[in-house]
């Protein structure tokens, strides 16, 4: 299927439009809230919460027998919160570390959820079809009301975030200080946590419990690389998340039997990889280039400094000296000498070199600069 045709379909086809809109909104809200999770050093809590939600879905189904999303998601919400609470309790009340608590709760809750799911599947009368989708997500099952639900939650979340922006920001940066200023940090804290859990639960149908945490982390981690402002980071994360949703949907819709979750996660991961490498200020590529360039500059400077020392011994600083002399200097190569000539710091005349006036000044400056820096 070619791209223009696909785009046309997105606008005309009801199902595709719903799905695209749904995944875009979902990506935006998880990206936004994920930024907070990442900055609070709670990256893996999302993973635990999403896994912990699974038994809730199964129990909600067992109790009500209903298949409608909202009932099941309420079950997910409750068991996700129980998992979160239990993790916090384990960490505060016992000597077990947070990584153990996270791994324990996520695997045990998930295992219990799977037990219930397989149990449900074997029930003869259960219209069990559809619970599987919560494992890896099936965007195709999104209907308009689901999208409305997501839009409303996102809207509320956005409003709360804008209202309490200042408070969120200062709490994330410096919790103790926030307390001394008289803000009730518990309230802000609970607000953020509840929204994160809510975003995770909203995404279960589309991305699934197994991979939901990546939706939280990946857009935020990518966004962090491009900016040093919290507002821009949150905005960018929302954009990256939304794009991951849209592209992921497009790819999985154009292929047979591909769950949406893994594809969306993979697209988001590509954003992350790209950002890690190509971000201008923090990216690995530019960092490497800078390192190499610095090393070159350093070599050049050292050579120049060495020449400066020789030139200094003579009254006339642009007096020519033998090139051979430079061989005493460890870092000297022909190409560095050529570069210095290109920069018009040095003149070469046969087997002799001399510093130009600019060359001498630069070298002198280099010295004073280094001395003040060392101080």
């Amino acid at each position: 299927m070619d791209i223009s045709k696909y785009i046309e379909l997105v606008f005309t086809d009801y199902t595709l439009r719903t799905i695209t809109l749904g995944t875009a909104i979902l990506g935006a809200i998880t990206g936004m809230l994920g930024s907070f999770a990442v900055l609070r050093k709670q990256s893996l809590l999302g993973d635990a919460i999403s896994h912990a939600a699974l038994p809730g879905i199964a129990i909600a189904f067992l109790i009500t027998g209903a298949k409608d999303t909202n009932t099941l998601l309420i079950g997910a919400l409750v068991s996700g919160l129980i998992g979160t609470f239990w993790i916090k309790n384990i960490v505060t009340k016992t000597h077990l570390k947070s990584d153990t608590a996270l791994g324990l709760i996520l695997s045990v809750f998930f295992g219990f959820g799977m037990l219930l799911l397989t149990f449900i599947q074997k029930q003869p009368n259960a219209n069990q079809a559809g619970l599987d989708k919560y494992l890896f997500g099936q965007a195709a099952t999104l209907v308009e009301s689901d999208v409305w639900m997501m839009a409303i939650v996102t809207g509320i979340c956005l409003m709360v975030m804008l209202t309490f922006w200042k408070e969120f920001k200062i709490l994330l940066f410096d919790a103790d200080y926030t307390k001394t200023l008289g803000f009730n940090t518990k309230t802000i804290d609970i607000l953020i946590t509840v929204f994160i859990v809510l975003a995770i639960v909203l995404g279960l149908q589309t991305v699934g419990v197994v991979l939901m945490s990546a939706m939280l982390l990946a857009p935020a981690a990518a966004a962090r690389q491009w900016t040093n402002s919290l507002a821009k980071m949150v905005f960018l994360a929302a954009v990256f998340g939304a794009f991951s949703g849209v592209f992921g949907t497009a790819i999985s819709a154009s292929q047979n039997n591909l769950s949406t979750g893994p594809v969306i996660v993979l697209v988001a991961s590509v954003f992350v990889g790209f950002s890690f490498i190509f971000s201008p200020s923090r990216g690995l590529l530019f960092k490497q280039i800078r390192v190499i360039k610095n090393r070159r500059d350093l070599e050049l400077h050292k050579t120049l400094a060495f020449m400066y020392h020789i030139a200094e011994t003579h009254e006339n600083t642009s007096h020519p000296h033998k090139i051979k002399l430079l061989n005493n200097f460890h870092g000297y190569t022909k190409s560095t000498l050529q570069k210095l000539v290109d920069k018009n710091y040095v003149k070469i005349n046969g087997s002799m070199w001399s510093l130009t006036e600019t060359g001498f000044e630069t070298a002198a400056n280099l010295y004073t600069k280094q001395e003040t820096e060392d101080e």
Partner: protein
Amino acid sequence: MRNESKEDIKPSTASERVFAVKVDDLTVAYNYKPVLWDIDLEIPEGVLMAIVGPNGAGKSTLIKSILGILKPIAGSVTIYGKPYEKQRRLVAYVPQKGSVDWDFPTTALDVVMMGTYGSLGWIKRPGQKEKKASLEALEKVGMLPFKNRQISQLSGGQQQRIFLARALVQNASIYFMDEPFQGVDATTEIAIINILKELRRAGKTVIVVHHDLQTVPEYFDWVTFLNVKKIATGPVKDIFNDDNLTKTYGINYQVSIQE
């Protein structure tokens, strides 16, 4: 408006003296392990005070419990005669440097502006006035050229100055600073201490956790020795002696202080 209310709190001719900070029988514990025991402390207004004591003595803990960050198991704290909750606006705090995430996406100016959040209260955003005050504070600590830097791209001393500026912008009466000289070069140390002395001249009370005993007599006029218990508190010239140092730092502590 704030000045008026401050006048009420500090009667100049009161019969009973009102201290800037008064700590009564304060005991603080982490997980029921006491780290501060029965501390009584009275800090008069307008002093520049050092809190000294070995690592783990409970200096940070003392400041945190005065500021209500930690809940003590016993005792009470008053600021100008009233509980801390009512007097927050009078107090500014510079935390120990390691306590925040320096890779947080925010700029130096942003961090300083956070000092204004307390007086703004909930929801209201900082505006031009707050920005102007923050820029002035940055200027004062000599960090104006760095205002748009991401904070992790500042040196340790520069980060410390940013924290100081954030406290300055709070425009408080009492300043608590937890090791503001940590990882700071000599020039910055002098710059900071000059700012602190200026604050004292303006009638503010400044309380500093300090590790370099050699400089105590030069920088401070008041000192508190702390090691789980309060060992001594008072004017530097009266109580800063080998006897108290030994009591605080252990049996064989020897530091000869030259005047």
